[in-house]
């Protein structure tokens, strides 16, 4: 689990950092304010909404059919084809829009799968504790070490090429870091006063989990899921590029693969190479910005830097006093 966070944390650290800064019960508007106060998060969110919009309404926006040859092979961008055409004379812009749909679908669905598995394991492990916790965390540790990408390749090669399989494979490979993060959170929430109070008042475990623990863990889970979307989009391009993608689905990964197999480089067709990669990069950046901003807000783990080029400044007293 190495490409999940841009500022990833070692397993040992995961525990610490999520336990920090969580002293009090969070209000529901927390996420909103966490995002709205950070420009990077706002920009990221805007970008994500844009791509989600394209994904949903893309079929109305595609200028041409993605199955038809509507121009010459590798035609450069023109007024008829804004992003030129590919090795089959198919309109690149239409392909890019169609690719958005599939890539976003895989991204969000796989992240959801990872969130469900990781969240469930994390909550159970953190809430129940004891031997179950030990066993689940040992399993998580092991999967954390087994290299994800080779495992993903093998699974994709074995289970066959369909979108559903890819979503499941990505999901079941990336749940581990979520599980660790959530477990640490749940553990700290469980020890908090109001949860203890609820427990002493006789709340059932179910009620405790759904009424008290989950709402507190949710923001972190959502932040983690947003980061996971980036990971899933990335993984999809990876699997697809190796020829293990869904053959009937046009995704960004597929377009990169097409550019490679279709000799776009030889044909000097930068328009077939650049756009899909730029889209992937932008979406991953956007997810990272949103997810990271949320996590930072949840875990203010970066303390004051004691070291900096700029030291404290001296200020003449008079000026300050004037303004008082």
């Amino acid at each position, binding site marked *: 689990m190495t490409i999940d966070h841009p500022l990833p944390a070692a397993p040992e650290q995961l525990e610490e950092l999520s336990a920090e800064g969580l002293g009090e019960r969070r209000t529901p508007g927390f996420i909103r304010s966490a995002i709205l106060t950070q420009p990077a998060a706002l920009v990221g969110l805007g970008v994500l909404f844009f791509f989600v919009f394209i994904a949903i309404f893309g079929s109305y926006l595609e200028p041409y059919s993605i199955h038809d040859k509507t121009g010459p092979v590798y035609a450069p961008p023109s007024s008829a084809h804004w992003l030129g055409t590919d090795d089959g004379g198919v309109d690149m812009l239409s392909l890019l829009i169609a690719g958005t749909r599939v890539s976003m679908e895989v991204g969000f669905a796989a992240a959801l799968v990872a969130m469900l598995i990781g969240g469930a394991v994390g909550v159970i492990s953190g809430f129940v504790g004891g031997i179950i916790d030990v066993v689940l965390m040992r399993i998580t540790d092991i999967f954390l070490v087994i290299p994800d*990408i080779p495992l993903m390749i093998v699974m994709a090669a074995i289970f066959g090429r369909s979108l559903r399989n890819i979503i499941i494979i990505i999901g079941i490979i990336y749940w581990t870091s979520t599980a660790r993060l959530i477990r640490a959170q749940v553990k700290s929430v469980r020890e908090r006063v109001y949860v203890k109070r609820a427990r002493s008042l006789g709340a059932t475990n179910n009620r405790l989990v759904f009424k008290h623990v989950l709402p507190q863990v949710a923001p972190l889970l959502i932040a983690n899921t947003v980061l996971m979307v980036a990971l899933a989009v990335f993984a999809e391009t*990876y699997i697809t590029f190796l020829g293990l993608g869904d053959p009937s689905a046009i995704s960004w990964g597929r377009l990169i693969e097409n550019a*490679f197999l279709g000799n776009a480089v030889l044909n000097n067709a930068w328009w077939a*190479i650049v756009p899909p990669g730029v889209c992937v990069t932008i979406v991953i950046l956007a997810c*990272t910005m949103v997810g990271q901003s949320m996590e930072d807000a949840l875990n203010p783990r*970066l303390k004051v830097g*004691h070291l900096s080029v700029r030291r404290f400044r001296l200020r003449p007293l008079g000026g300050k006093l004037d303004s008082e």
Partner: protein
Amino acid sequence: MEGRADYVVKRTLFALLTVFVAVTINFLLFRALPGDAVSGLRCQHCTIQFKAALRHDLGLDKSKWEQYKIYLKQLAHGNLGLSDVSHEPVRGLLWDPLKNTLLMLTLGTVFSIIFGLLTGVVAAWRRGTWVDKGSLWTSLAFYSMPTQWLGLMIVYFVADRIGLPHGGIQSPDLGILGNPSTYDYWKDRLEHMILPALTLGLVLYGEYTLIVRSAMLETLGEDYVLTARAKGLSNFAIVRKHGLRNAMLPIVTLIALSLGFIVGGAITVEYVFDYPGIGLAIVDAIDKRDYTFLQGAFLLLTISVILFNFLADLLYFKLDPRVTT
């Protein structure tokens, strides 16, 4: 001190357990395929009887549990089976590409670690300045790029401009009329290695800069850094004596954990650059559905990643006197 010995024992056991789990997953995954290695065979003489005999020869008529035991036993002897395609021992088929990959990977990784450390430390040190912001965004961008795409971009925009080959491992005309000199040979090799190593290096560079920066920031926020400053140490001395050494702890762990990613990156990079390493061999095996080879390659990669993680654990042990469990 007893606790420290325990640590080594525990990490060793954990590494062994992980290897065992990986081996088991490997066995189970490939048994999840519909049919077996024999049912996919097609040939004039592949009668039902022939297939049954072959199944017997390969031990496929035994129970899964028996097969699993045999598999483990074979592995213990270093036997990874015969390729489904070429029928040669997989162990031998892995060796040549592995050598090529290791060279390229080392070049790329060393590049990225050196530059990642440098820029990460500088960014953390100059936190909030344009140096920090610039390097943060650069590394985030590289980190977000699909490796294969970055490779294509480099082939398209860079290769011809700086006169390096688009791919391959040596020039096609090298050594046809006699053996090249050692110098020519290695110069040619290096020329073919630079771009794939650069691609891999850039992606890793992005990741490592981010890792190092955040680890350094965290370390520089620690109380003992304030103590060091109070003692009168210069900034450079603080970074060198107190910052880096302590930041190395998370960095070592994270770099070890990123090995899976390096391996993954190497696969696409080799594919894009037509570099005949283990990654290209894997792509080829995927293409030909050479499952035994894939199985062997997966095991090799997994075990080496586990091994490196274990080494990182030991390094951690060396770096951090606190570790006990």
